[in-house]
């Protein structure tokens, strides 16, 4: 009889938990990542994911020559410094935040419009046998016109 009640209750609790996790991710992106864009106007697009240590995410976007851009990539506190690199269409690395003390933002301008690829990675810090940490990682873009 107890099982009768228990299964639906567990299902609902888990459902609420999963839904809440993604809701929290959106809230994290709004409260923590967007402010990192500073004076740049957020473009309105939403890119956030729950990543586990060691996991990577990729993003493809066209950037235009008339704009100045800032990309902000921020992870929740329980994750270690988020690594990100930017590659051109020929897969050449044109920026890595490892070389900038794991900076959360990168400001750039382009002479001609380009499609770029961003690779974002949550480095592993858990010891063997420990449960790997997971948390929200948010990628936001801000822009402003060149003077």
């Amino acid at each position: 009889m107890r099982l009768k009640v228990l299964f639906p209750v567990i299902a609902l609790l888990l459902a609420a938990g999963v839904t809440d996790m993604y809701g929290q991710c959106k809230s994290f992106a709004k409260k923590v990542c967007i402010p990192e864009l500073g004076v740049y106007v957020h473009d309105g697009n939403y890119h956030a994911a729950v990543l586990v240590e060691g996991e990577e995410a990729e993003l493809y976007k066209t950037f235009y020559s008339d704009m100045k851009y800032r990309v902000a990539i921020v992870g929740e506190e329980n994750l270690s410094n988020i690594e990100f690199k930017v590659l051109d269409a020929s897969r050449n690395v044109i920026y890595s935040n490892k070389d900038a003390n794991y900076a959360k933002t990168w400001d750039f301008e382009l002479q001609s419009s380009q499609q770029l690829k961003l690779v974002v990675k949550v480095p592993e810090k858990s010891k063997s046998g420990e449960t790997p940490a997971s948390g929200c990682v948010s990628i936001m873009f801000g822009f402003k016109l060149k003077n």
Partner: protein
Amino acid sequence: MNRKYGIASGLLLVVLMITLLFNGCKSCSTTEPVNDLNVDVSKDNTELVDDINKAKQIFQAIPSPLESAMLIKSTGAKFNQTLLNPLGNADSYATSRSMALNLGVYTCDLSFTSLYEQTQLIIDYMNASKKMAEGLGILRAIDQATIDRLEQNINNTEVIMEIVSETFMNSSSDLVDNGQPAVAAMVLVGGWFEGLYIATQLVDMKDFNGNKLVGRIIDQKLSIDILLNLLDENKGNPAIDELIIQVQKLKAVFDKINLTTSPIRPEYVETTNTTYLKSEVKSNLTPEVFAELAKTVAEIRGTFVK
């Protein structure tokens, strides 16, 4: 009886969890391999495509309505109200497809009116966007408080852009969180087409060569495969399948444009804390191909707003 109930409950749990995890993942990005990037700017793109196929979490980012409107304004193009989707059309959209596409369309028009400081139209187009959002069941994305805040700051372009950006993000993320990633993709598609439609209509053919706006239109070739990848993630949905055919038709025209770029040479300038990505671009858009492009965009956009 109890055993049967236990099995049923267990199945319910499993089904529920799979459904939620599936929707949850979609709310973030895709985990499916994406087959094609097809940016014709470099032969090395095959390597890029290989990368996509291996990736776990992939985001396809197309220009937002606000970015599209900003690109148009940056070229010095003039405001033209007749190019916007008439507000009266808002009452005629009844399907999820038409409301989603026109949420994108109206948000782009709203961005356009905001950047050109058309105060009354800003309120009107925000209300039209609100109507579309309500029809899609995302009431919180654009609420009355948003409209009130907009009215209070109607002469402050900076705050207006912030509100437009926020409402667009709320709309997209709420749709995905509600388990409607295909609808969210349609909103993005609607916004992108509206920006491209306005841009192509604003080109003065007497001033074609060296026209800055034409340059920004050519740049959209770089985004069309990203757009197709975004739609492919939701393949199987009849409205999305129809859009894929339409976007492929447009891609066929974009494919007539050769676009070559030299390798990027990054240069970091400490005083501005900015990296300058130096590269040169060459393209060969003729007035004839441009006319075909403008016609195709207008036809497709016409099916969205009718």
